[in-house]
């Protein structure tokens, strides 16, 4: 965004962003299209797109700058339109064959729907591409599915999502599934995608059809975007026979196949790579190729039967927190949260479930004080891979047997957090610590496995 001074000067000369202008300064004359200033650049610097397509910046704040409108653009209008966020209407005619299996797409924002944001200079899903725009890049979808409805409940990057947004998505998904869609495909930001995946896993009960979450690590505005392969494979998943909530994204850094991983056993494991989403403590449900080949990797999943209606169970207690126990950490953070009305905690502990037990900074007495009042503590592991064990070491027993922490089995911290909020959202459990323990140790959406299979580590 330009500074107030620049905007005023432009207004005086009735110059708008997108106009062709000539800027004269110190005897130099530069002609081009006036582009918006990104937030990353200097707000007093005019950005001109030269006829070559390049953008250059010219400082406006110094004295002796003249800017005037010149005759209309010679450069390609399409290019300018693109930068200004317009897409030509002719491109938005999406046609799907009604003979294909019907699905719906729920677009929520994220990199997959991102384009340049002139306020920050970065990419954003706030002023996102419409689903039609990013779907246009993947014409193959037309041969696979019939997208009969595109829902857009809101547009957010995943870091801006809140538990109420998960509920909103669940409602839209349930509505579409109960209206007869073969499955739903949810496009979503990736940073906290696995939280939404876990939430939907608990919220959508009696699921008989696939709910597939998909995102992109490279924005859809580049030829190398992973969005294409992800959307194609995800649409195969959405009409496939695995009736689970799951994430479908690149399996490797090759553009060859995607992993479809259960929503309660999947995590973003890399900040940047397209194969960032990995199944944790479990095999992926399937490998899916863009030609529609599906190789089941985990037979322990619900099969499609298309009968009955999906039920919504979206009661959620948002006053739960994940805390990390580590050398030097201060357990009084728990007291602070409790004073703020928090009602349950996931403690991300060391390995098998250890927290500082004996020294000055021990967590045991604080945890014990609160469990005595009925506040649940669930341990998960900072190791990410593996299972909590409450018995192997004395200190594990002190925490889980004496202080009353609930061992979180092989649940991911994020999954345990969402589950705890969901469990405490239920009236029956809210006031009954034993019921909370029982529910936390019951697998509702495949979040706790009985066996840890050796081949699942670093899959």
């Amino acid at each position, binding site marked *: 965004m330009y500074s107030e001074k620049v905007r005023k000067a432009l207004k005086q000369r009735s110059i708008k962003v997108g106009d062709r202008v000539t800027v004269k300064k110190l005897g*130099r004359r*530069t002609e081009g299209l006036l582009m918006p200033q*990104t937030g*990353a*650049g*200097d707000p007093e*610097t005019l*950005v001109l797109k*030269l*006829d*070559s*397509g*390049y*953008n*250059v*910046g*010219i*400082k406006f704040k110094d004295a002796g700058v003249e800017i005037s409108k010149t005759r209309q653009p010679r*450069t*390609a209008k*399409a*290019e300018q*339109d*693109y*930068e200004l966020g*317009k*897409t*030509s209407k002719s*491109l938005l005619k999406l046609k799907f064959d009604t003979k294909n299996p019907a699905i719906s797409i729920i677009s929520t924002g994220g990199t997959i729907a991102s*384009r*340049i*944001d002139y306020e920050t*200079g*970065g*990419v954003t899903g706030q002023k996102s*591409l419409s689903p039609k*725009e*990013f*779907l*246009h*890049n*993947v014409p193959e979808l037309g041969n696979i599915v019939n997208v009969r409805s595109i829902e857009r409940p809101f547009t957010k990057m995943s870091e801006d999502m809140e538990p109420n947004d998960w509920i909103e998505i669940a409602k839209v998904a349930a509505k579409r599934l109960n209206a007869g869609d073969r499955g739903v495909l949810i496009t979503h930001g990736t940073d906290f995608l696995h939280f939404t995946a876990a939430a939907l896993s608990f919220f959508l009960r009696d699921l008989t059809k696939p709910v597939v979450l998909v995102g992109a*690590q*490279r924005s*859809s*505005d*580049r*030829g*190398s*975007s992973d969005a*294409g*392969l992800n959307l194609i494979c995800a649409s195969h998943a959405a009409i496939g026979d695995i009736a689970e909530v799951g994430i479908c994204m690149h399996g490797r*850094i*090759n*553009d*060859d196949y995607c992993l479809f991983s259960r929503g309660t056993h999947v995590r973003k494991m890399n900040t*940047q*790579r*397209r194969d960032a989403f990995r199944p944790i403590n479990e095999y992926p449900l399937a490998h899916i190729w863009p030609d529609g080949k599906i190789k089941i990797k985990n037979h322990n999943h619900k099969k499609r039967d298309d009968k009955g209606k999906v039920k919504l169970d979206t009661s959620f207690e948002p006053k739960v927190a994940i805390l990390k126990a580590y050398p030097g950490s201060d357990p009084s953070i728990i007291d602070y949260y409790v004073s703020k009305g928090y009602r349950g905690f996931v403690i991300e502990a060391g390995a098998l479930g250890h927290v500082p037990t004996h020294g000055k900074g021990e967590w045991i007495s604080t945890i014990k004080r609160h469990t005595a009042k009925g506040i649940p503590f669930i341990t998960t592991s900072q190791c990410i891979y593996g299972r909590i064990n409450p018995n192997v070491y004395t200190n594990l027993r002190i925490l889980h047997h004496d202080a009353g922490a609930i061992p979180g089995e092989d649940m991911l911290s994020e999954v345990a957090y969402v589950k705890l909020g969901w469990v405490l959202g239920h009236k029956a459990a809210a006031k009954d610590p034993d019921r909370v323990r029982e529910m936390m140790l019951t697998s509702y959406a495949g979040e706790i496995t009985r066996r840890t299979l050796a081949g699942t580590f670093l899959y």
Partner: protein
Amino acid sequence: MAFDYKKIGLKCGLEIHQQLATRHKLFCGCSAAMQDREPVFSVTRRLRPVAGELGEVDAAAAYETLKNKTFRYFVYLNETCEVELDEEPPHPLNPEALEIALQVALMLNCEVPEEIQVMRKTVLDGSNTTGFQRTAIVGINGWIGTNFGKVGITNVSIEEDACQIMDKKVKGGTDFGLNRLGVPLVEIGTTANIPDPEEAREVAEKIGMILRSTGKVRRGIGTIRQDVNVSIRGGERVEIKGFQELRMIPKIIDKEIDRQQRLIAKKKQVSRDVRKALADGTTKFLRPLPGAARMYPETDVVPIEVTPGKLKELRKSLPKLITEKASSIEKLGLAPDLAKNIAKSPVLMELFQELSKLKNIKPAFLANVLVSYPRVLSKEYNVSDPGTITKGHLRSVFKALSGGRIGKGRVMELLAAAGQGKELKIEAGKDAGFGEAEVRRIVRDVIAANPQALSHSRPAQALMGLVMKEVRGRAPGSLVMKVLADEIKK
């Protein structure tokens, strides 16, 4: 073929790409040396059209994507990271590369933008893993002088080099090496109004000289690439890529004129193509010429401000042109070619300037040794790698020569010894130069062995050769001459 260029309305322009000799690549910490030989693994990718975003399908982009190719990218350990693999966002633009590019822009009399914005230029032929090339303008509206007059420089850009094609014959795709991807390049574009092929060649030569004058550009095959665009009245702008030798420019232009004229004569449309230059100067179709609608901002790199202070500092320390340097040392009695050979190498130039200040060193001799020692050592002394000769070796040898401790004839011998890994011991042992006493002993021995020479009309001349053979360069000729004259008098 001889054309009346004015009559046919010839207009040429040049685009020159030169790799910069930086330590790191343009947007990551990988080495830019391109030394890795064996790839460690490969990654398979596809590119997709981005029409929905570009708003309009770019001709070049559409053409390439229609082919629906698979690309295989080969990873080199020291020269590939996740940035080249399009798995990691770019790091900030390499300041070392930016500085060189700004120097070039200033040497080409360009205006430098106050804010430099990195752009993405859509490239869908697989040569960039991202589907675009990162590029930024660092200079516009420049010019250079030629014998024909001024030629405009439309832009100096800094950009990342593309992948190198390893094998085009892969089934359904192309194999690319990732080691070249991201190596910093400067791109220099001239105005497309050069009216004469010879002038085009001169412009290319001059730009090349200016680039080399920075001392910070890569040398060797493939490090500089020229494209020529050619149009004639009734034809179209056609870009010709892929030739290394500047002397080919006029021939390529003539052949392109001929090709366009034939098409026009047959009333056929000349299409806006990118064509590849072949060895005989003819060209072959590569792809349609990309339109301007393929450039959009690189959102992962923040714009870079170029302050007036920074520009002032750069202007003050602009490197001297090779031609200027050459004429300055020519004055010391060097032949023009020799002077140019010294001037075009920053290392040699520095050494020459340092060592030519020593007493009793003839600049021309010094220059000759500096330019020729690698060839002489490998050909005449069997030194397998003259690259092992250090500046230190050259300094020691020329200091010894300057101090009269050795004669000229010993220079190559000593360098050869150093090149064979022997320690340079000029002060002691058999490598030491002969003093006057030693020379006198040799002279007496030679006279004693050749008494008849004394009756020669010019005995000194008769004996000099024999004495020098014994001295073998270990004493300066002037000393030998003086002692010999002394001894003959006796």
